């Protein structure tokens, strides 16, 4: 017999012997190691009847220990893992399984989180795309304030953590740059950067200014004071957004921000000019 032929015969014989032994061991006995592993596997799928939130494998309770003993005994007697699980379900009911079977009413448990994740993701994607499209149009438009709030809440934790991790000089640089971009050269503000940031976010909810609605008033000095001062930290709003008396309150509130941020206060004449201008174009009561 040639070399390769002999090898082949040997291989066939070996495989045959292995198969035979595998079949025999599968039907008959499992090694102690196999039994241990199987017992552990089944025990980790069963709920401990006493403590409920732990598996039989993890539970320190006496009953869990006894349950493990039962699992092992049944395996030794030749039961399949499915039969062992079915035994406990027949005695305790389905709740004994830590993972509810993927069928019937239980499917909800498996499918709902997935659907919620998909739904939430789609919602975010749609809203963000819309938002970005508006930005591209050049009209910031109005974004749902509650959506912004949700987004801000979702991001805050992460952003704060990132911000705190930055070295101080980087944070200081970023603050100065931010202020410069906002047209503010005058500084040592206390908490000003933060407030300016808040205003910058808030501007998105402002009704944008439409100069054509103001007619010839866009040539007035008051208009330019308004643009210069009110448009420094946030976009200049449409005067028609509020009534005259509302504007007075808004101005007071905004001026408090200016003071807090350490910016140059609005002088008395400027203040009157701006409020007069706003009053001319304000919303009727």
């Amino acid at each position, binding site marked *: 017999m040639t070399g390769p032929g002999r090898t082949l015969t040997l291989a066939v014989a070996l495989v045959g012997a292995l198969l035979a032994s595998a079949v025999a061991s599968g039907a008959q006995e499992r090694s102690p190691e196999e039994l241990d592993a199987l017992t552990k596997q089944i025990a980790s799928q069963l709920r401990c*009847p*006493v403590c409920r939130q732990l598996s039989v494998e993890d539970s320190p309770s*006496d*009953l869990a220990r*006894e*349950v493990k*003993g*039962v699992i092992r*005994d*049944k395996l030794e*007697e*030749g*039961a399949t893992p499915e*039969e062992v699980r*079915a*035994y406990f*379900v*027949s*005695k*305790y*009911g389905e*709740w004994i399984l830590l993972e509810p079977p993927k069928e019937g009413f239980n499917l*909800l448990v498996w499918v709902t989180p997935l659907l919620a994740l998909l*739904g939430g993701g789609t919602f975010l994607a749609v809203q963000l795309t819309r938002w970005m499209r508006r930005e591209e149009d050049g009209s910031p438009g109005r974004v749902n304030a509650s959506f912004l709030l949700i987004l801000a809440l979702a991001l805050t934790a992460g952003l704060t953590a990132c911000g705190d991790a930055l070295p101080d000089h980087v944070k200081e640089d970023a603050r100065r740059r931010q202020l410069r971009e906002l047209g503010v050269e005058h500084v040592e503000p206390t908490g000003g950067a933060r407030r300016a940031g808040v205003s910058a976010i808030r501007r998105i909810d402002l009704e944008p200014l439409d100069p054509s609605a103001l007619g010839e008033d866009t040539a007035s000095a008051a208009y330019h004071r308004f643009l210069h001062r009110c448009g420094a930290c946030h976009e200049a709003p449409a005067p028609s957004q509020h009534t005259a008396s509302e504007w007075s309150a808004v101005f007071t509130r905004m001026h408090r921000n200016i003071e807090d941020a350490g910016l140059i206060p609005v002088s008395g004449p400027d203040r009157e000019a701006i409020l007069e201008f706003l009053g001319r174009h304000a919303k009727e009561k």
Partner: protein
Amino acid sequence: MTWKKISGLGVVLAFVALLGFGLTLDPSELSSPLVGSAAPGFRLEVLEGGGSRDSVGLAELEAKGAVVNFWASWCLACIQEHPALVRAWRRYEREGIQMVGIVYQDRPSAARRYLERYGGGWLQLMDPGSRTAIDYGVYGIPETFFIDSAGTITHKHVGPVDDQVLDREIGRLLSGAREAEASPASETGMRAGEPPDAGGSGALGPEAPR
């Protein structure tokens, strides 16, 4: 736009309804799959109250019905329910109801002391390794099973039983036994329940040799 709002609202309402439905359920109240099926068989050593016998099997209990109570001396709720069990025993034993106590995870000496202190002379069995308790799906004692003359579990009570539950369930057992006697076709006696449910496979049977 409107259909979007309506469908969105529908999803939210469905979810809220689902959660609301969940609120009406008590997660600690677990219905036993054993109610309505044959009581698992057992052969256990007698602690006391078994007369001359060393061990007793479920099939030997010739009675119009049985009340099987899992308890332990360390279980406070068991002490609470014990007087009701004593009353039921005095009242129903002569009517043919067999009361069985199965001691759960306890030492025989402690169980004996408990019985000396709180009384009760019904059949008491030891369940080392809790095999019978697991067969009955016991998760927290006291648990009480009501078994009819055909060997079927008619009711399971979790927590301390009271006179009301005992009277009602034992009453059902007795009336069931009377009906069985009245109809000649059906057998009477606990033997009718043999062989006890063993999960379908001989290898899984509680009476299989270990």
